[in-house]
């Protein structure tokens, strides 16, 4: 097995691991309204690297599911669409956060048992 192939397998698994967390991160982050590009940058600054090709369609999907709401702001040089987490989105974010903590605890347990 070549080095490239291992890298590719690793990249695939990491992508799968992160896939669900980007949605949760958006719901948490958008409790303060913001537009797409600013969201992209701030998520990156917070250590969640997300591809623009993933983020923009994701925002559209979240909006369609009623988890975020949007509003066009026309005050600036360019019209920008500001997204904000809806009450349903907020409820989902709490459920997912609980799940996240449970998974984290479970994985910690597994790691400790492996080490002892």
């Amino acid at each position: 097995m070549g080095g490239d192939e291992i890298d590719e397998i690793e990249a695939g698994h990491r992508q799968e691991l992160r896939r669900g967390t980007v949605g949760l991160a958006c719901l948490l982050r958008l409790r303060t309204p913001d537009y797409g590009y600013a969201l992209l940058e701030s998520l990156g600054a917070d250590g969640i690297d997300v591809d623009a090709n993933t983020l923009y369609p994701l925002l559209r999907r979240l909006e369609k599911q009623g988890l975020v709401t949007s509003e066009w702001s026309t005050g600036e040089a360019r019209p920008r669409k500001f997204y904000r987490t809806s009450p349903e989105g907020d409820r989902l974010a709490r459920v997912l956060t609980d799940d996240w903590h449970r998974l984290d605890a479970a994985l910690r347990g597994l790691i400790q048992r492996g080490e002892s």
Partner: protein
Amino acid sequence: MTTPTLTDRYLFAAARSVPQTQRTEFRSELAERIGDSIDAKVEGGADREAAELDVLTELGNPDALAATYADRPLQLIGPAHYLLWKRLLKLLLAIVLPCVAFAYVLAQLISGAGMGEIYGGTVVVLINVTVHLAFWTTAVFAFIDRVSGGTSVVDWKPDELPVVVEPPRNQLRIDVVSNLVLVVLAALAILVGPGLIPSPDGAGSVPFFAPATWAWLQWYLLAVLVAQLAFWLLLLRHGRWSYPFVLASLVLAAAAALPIAATLATGRLLNPEYLARTDWADAVEQLGSGGVVASVLAVGVVAGAAVWPIDGFVKARRARQELLAG
């Protein structure tokens, strides 16, 4: 009007494949995304034009991008090659089918086959060729898709963007005027045309249309044309297509096409005396009552007339969607 920028062309190309009702929203969202990405690159010290080219290249094929936004993954072949597969297959069919049909008919004519045999055979050959083309093209693409691991073998470049073609605002007026011209030309053809068709052997004047039929048909058709004239003027006043107009166009198209098709198919439209004098030995048999050529022409007349109400239906639906959307 300023010349459309590369971004304008990208937005136009991407918005085309999004459903009409979501188009404006999608366009604004994408414009925001492209603008912000360009600004970010310019702030990083890049030249604006180079930044624009970079951003659009990174976005990739606009059709594929629109597909990811619309949650409509292109999966028949795999997203990397689906659009190329579709385009190539269409192109192949458009080129190969007419060539095959022409070659087959020519070969059969040379070998002296009957008309019925040629028509039947052509249909069978065309179906065969279509199935083979579709199957093998798809098979080759499925293979490429596997081997390349789903990454496109053809890079997309912004140069491929289409030129922006905004539908002119006065499209309806253009339609109406061109159709009024057509109606007038058709009326002239009915009044003057038959007299201009020369007799086949030059001896005396043998009318092209059967005199008994033409005596009433010409006045009937002129009356239908007057009704069509009124139709176009009313449509122009109304301002846009609507379903009542589609219905009216259907009635008027049928009124014009059905008598022509019926007299043609039953051998009462064309003058047998005229046909008998032409060089075409089979003319009376083929163009007479129940003749193969006459039947095909009759079907062609009806199909040709159907284009009008179908076009109207499409426009009426679009007008309705635009009304509902905004």
